[in-house]
């Protein structure tokens, strides 16, 4: 029964993708416009960009930036979030800062970083980190606030070291919040990073998209977009989903 319903769901998912393809093809044929190439045209452009090595290069550059800024934002955000969640006076003091940083538009942070620090690689990374950090802090702080006092007391009574308490008692409780921050973080970062690259870098997906915009090259634009979406999907499927499943296995 489950296997059959699984198959049914898969069939539905595939047919919905096919439907998008058909609609796109149909529109492209009817409109017959330079600004809406057919799926076949985009696929060809995609393939050429892949074998020329251009697409893999820019994709790798962007992914590298993503990885670095993501790692910095997550680790810093976790540390600050836990601190604020466990320390009331620190939380009261820094709460306003968080609200301010949360509400500064991403574009403003990016422009300021470039204006103040120049069109440098690390200024670009800093801009992404600053945009992402407040979200991580808020979500981890929420988790740190709701840590079970019962379990912390248990750890204390059984003389757990600080490290042991963190690894075995605190981190598993924060895990769902970390996963939420990771998910929302990835989608946020990859939107921001394109703008960062568009405004101040001479390589990466954002830079390329800017180029295609100036050339009105919609086929390349779509080809690059697909590459990006596919990579993000792969990260979700190959890294995040398994992590999630592993962490949920104990739940009833």
């Amino acid at each position, binding site marked *: 029964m489950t296997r059959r319903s699984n198959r049914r769901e898969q069939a539905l998912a595939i047919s919905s993708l096919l439907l998008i393809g058909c609609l796109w093809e149909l529109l492209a044929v009817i409109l017959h416009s330079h600004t809406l190439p057919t799926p076949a045209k985009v696929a060809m452009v995609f393939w050429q960009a892949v074998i020329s090595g251009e697409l893999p290069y820019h994709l790798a550059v962007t992914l590298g930036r993503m990885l670095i800024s993501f790692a910095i934002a997550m680790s810093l955000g976790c540390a600050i979030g836990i601190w604020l969640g466990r320390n009331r006076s620190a939380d009261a003091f820094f709460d306003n800062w968080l609200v301010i940083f949360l509400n500064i538009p991403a574009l403003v942070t990016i422009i300021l970083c470039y204006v103040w620090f120049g069109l440098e690689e690390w200024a670009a990374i800093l801009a992404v980190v600053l945009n992402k950090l407040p979200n991580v802090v808020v979500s981890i702080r929420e988790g740190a606030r709701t840590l079970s006092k*019962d*379990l912390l*007391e*248990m750890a*204390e*009574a*059984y*003389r757990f070291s600080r490290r*042991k308490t963190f690894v*075995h*008692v605190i981190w*598993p409780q924060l895990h769902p919040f970390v996963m939420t921050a990771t998910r929302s973080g990835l989608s946020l970062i990859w939107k921001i990073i394109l703008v960062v690259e568009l405004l101040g870098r001479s390589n990466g997906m954002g830079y390329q998209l800017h180029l295609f915009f100036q050339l009105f090259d919609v086929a390349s634009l779509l080809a690059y977009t697909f590459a990006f979406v596919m990579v993000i999907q792969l990260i979700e499927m190959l890294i995040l989903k398994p992590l999630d499943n592993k*962490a949920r*296995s*104990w*739940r*009833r």
Partner: protein
Amino acid sequence: MSAIQIDISDKSYQYDGHTVRTISKLQLQVNANEFVCLVGPSGCGKTTLLNIVAGLDSQFHGHITINHDGPKPHLGYVFQSPRLLPWYTVRKNIELVLCGLPPAELIDSLLAEMQLTEVQHFYPERLSLGMQRRVAIIRAFAINPDVLLMDEPFVSLDAPSARQIRTLLYSLWLQRPHTVLFVTHDLREAIALADRLIFLTPKPMQIVADIPVGIARMERNDAGKIEAFREHLLQDFPIINRFL
């Protein structure tokens, strides 16, 4: 071998702008390898007292001394709720409290005695409350404690399960004796287990009676003996009735 010296002159906390006094002038000496039951009404501050002895609560006036030869005494604590880590299996929960290499045979034998061998690789949330409580008891015994604190470990269990775990607990303790502070408000349970009964008043908590239980250890399973002792106790110390 650990004896506990409790001397608390005052334990209070602030609630809604008022000072609530939980414990005042409480002195209690627990001898090494003695099983002491603290009996008192709900909310009288027994859990607070155990937390103070465990070192979880340092906001009080007074001293707790655990006389112990050798390095720091091992302390086992069975809380009122099982407090197992839900993300680890039963076995991992027990192994975690042991420092260094967990002795597999000890855990195996404890699991077998508590009849949990079958479920040792289950996650706690898949077990009944009674089973979870047994795991919590094993966890406390596994560290080979010098001092064992137990806070109503059988509360909210049905009478047969409570009796079964109580018997298991008692036989474990007879095999590996250590100093026990056991909180309960069930007088029969206290008589079945304790060397000494300490009766406590509602807040601010004080000791009203300190009564040794003169029933031989082999006869603690005899419900008649327990009942007779209880009748006597209530006749001789009518004041106890007011606090049960």
